[in-house]
């Protein structure tokens, strides 16, 4: 037990076994109680209904576009090429042989079903997950850029940079994200899109207002993290760099920031995990990210317990991956 580093003396082997077992018991108890409670309210668990919201098999009907006679059906290895000869025009479709509904010589009108085929499509939950991922990635990238710039401006000598940074940080940190999202969508969004419409330009989709709301919100927090990181680097580092003749920008880029970024990775990870979770608010401006998608699924499936649990697990998947990725960066940076 010589590797023991605590200050209270080594614990016995049983100490860890007993408390470890107690933890597992507590975990099982909590899950058991939850299950028991759902039985009491007569909830019927139907986990088999969940997979269809991830992937499902879609049936597509193939319809004719012209009026005419099926002149030829050429069958090759399960696929049939159906050719329709109309009045001076011709069209052909490829249909799986076993799903073919009509035969050679049949007369068809536009909109008649020739046959069907099935293919796999991603479900609404996966769509929502991908959108959440997209919004989060974009917001993280913009958030880092805004945060880095604002963090540097926050400690600059120039009053306009410093005061702008302080005003920005205080305003953003002092108001609720939900209100900011509404402001971006209903105020900024309306103004921009109305102006674009007046000049005959295409509209900016709500996604971008959502991304900007998240990025600007995260940027304010990131700025303070960056500032704290820079200020945590010993003063002597800047003095050493400057005494060698480097200017402020060179010293900052080559000496201070590399050391600061290494230290701020853990709080940055926390910030970006928050951002992924905060993206669940974007449903209110009709961006169908994971939470909004889940709400729609719950409405149609009437299985709220399963779907909301799945939703939470999907968010966990995203945040856990991000957390692992940052830990990997941290190890690599040392």
């Amino acid at each position: 037990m010589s590797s023991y580093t605590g200050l209270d003396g080594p614990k016995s082997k049983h100490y860890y076994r007993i408390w470890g077992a107690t933890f597992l018991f507590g975990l099982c108890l909590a899950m058991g109680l939850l299950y028991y409670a759902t039985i009491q309210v007569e909830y019927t668990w139907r986990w088999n209904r969940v997979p269809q919201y991830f992937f499902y098999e879609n049936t597509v009907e193939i319809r004719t576009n012209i009026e005419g006679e099926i002149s030829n059906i050429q069958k090759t290895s399960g696929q049939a090429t159906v050719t329709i000869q109309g009045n001076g025009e011709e069209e052909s479709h490829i249909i799986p042989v076993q799903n073919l509904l009509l035969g050679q010589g049949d007369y068809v009108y536009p909109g008649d079903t020739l046959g069907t085929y099935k293919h796999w499509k991603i479900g609404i939950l996966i769509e929502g997950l991908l959108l959440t991922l997209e919004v989060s990635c974009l917001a993280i990238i913009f958030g880092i850029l805004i945060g880095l710039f604002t963090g540097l401006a926050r400690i600059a000598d120039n009053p306009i940079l410093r005061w702008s940074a302080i005003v920005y940080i205080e305003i953003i940190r002092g108001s609720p994200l939900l209100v900011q999202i509404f402001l971006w969508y209903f105020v900024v969004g309306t103004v921009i899109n109305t102006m674009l419409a007046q000049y005959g330009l295409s509209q900016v989709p709500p996604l971008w207002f959502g991304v900007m709301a998240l990025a600007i919100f995260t940027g304010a927090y990131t700025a303070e993290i960056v500032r704290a990181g820079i200020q945590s680097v010993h003063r002597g580092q800047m003095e050493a760099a400057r005494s060698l003749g480097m200017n402020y920008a060179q010293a900052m880029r080559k000496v201070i920031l590399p050391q600061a970024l290494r230290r701020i990775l853990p709080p940055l990870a926390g910030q970006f995990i928050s951002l992924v979770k905060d993206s669940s608010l974007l449903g209110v401006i009709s961006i169908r990210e994971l939470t909004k998608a889940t709400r729609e699924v719950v409405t149609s499936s009437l299985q709220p317990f399963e779907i909301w649990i799945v939703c939470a697990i999907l968010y966990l998947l995203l945040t856990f991956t991000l957390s692992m990725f940052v830990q990997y960066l941290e190890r690599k940076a040392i």
Partner: protein
Amino acid sequence: MSAPIIDVRNIEKYFYTPEELKALNRVSCTVDPGEVVVIIGPSGSGKSTFLRCLNRLEYADAGEIIIDGVNILDPKCNINAIRAEVGMVFQSFNLFPHKTVLENLTMAQMTVRGRSKKEAEDKAMVLLKKVGIADKFAAKPDQLSGGQQQRVAIARSLAMNPKIMLFDEPTSALDPEMVGEVLDVMKTLAREGMTMVVVTHEMGFAREVADRVLFMDKGEILEQGPPSHFFTNPVHERTKEFLSQIL
């Protein structure tokens, strides 16, 4: 007699901590090219502040500091160009911990002097050999002992081909047995004719290497002279008192 390379005229420096503290009180002094000047004095006497004013790490509040013909207190002067000519060695080494020893030496050469990587690395290896740690070029600073780190720091400053070297208590943070190796490097430099201003508590070094010793107390230079005279026949009462405490 050539013109002094450092010419300090009546500089004053105040600190507000928050009560006003006069760290330097109308200090004047000149240093000729190739001269080795050692500054001694009790802690809080302003000797480090004086040294840091010489490359404007502290901005003197009044007076003139003329380095190699340029008044560095003129806001329009290119301080980065001046600093490239004035090497500085710190008490706490201040090596860049995220870079290897070699990169510590090449970074400023490439960014400030605009040397190619090859050129900078050749120069760095020559200097590392000179300070006796060429074999550690790939190590990170925290893998080195204090004495080795300080020798790297000296080599890092020398890589810029400075005209003046400033030493701010370079051996104060070292284990006693490592003081010697750093002082040896400094002695070699002095012998080669480098202009040096050294703040130190190493009286042996002062006696052996210095051309002139300055004694500072309460922000003023009380006494100065060649070491032979300074250590044997101090004039000022405060100097006598200080020397009797440490010798």
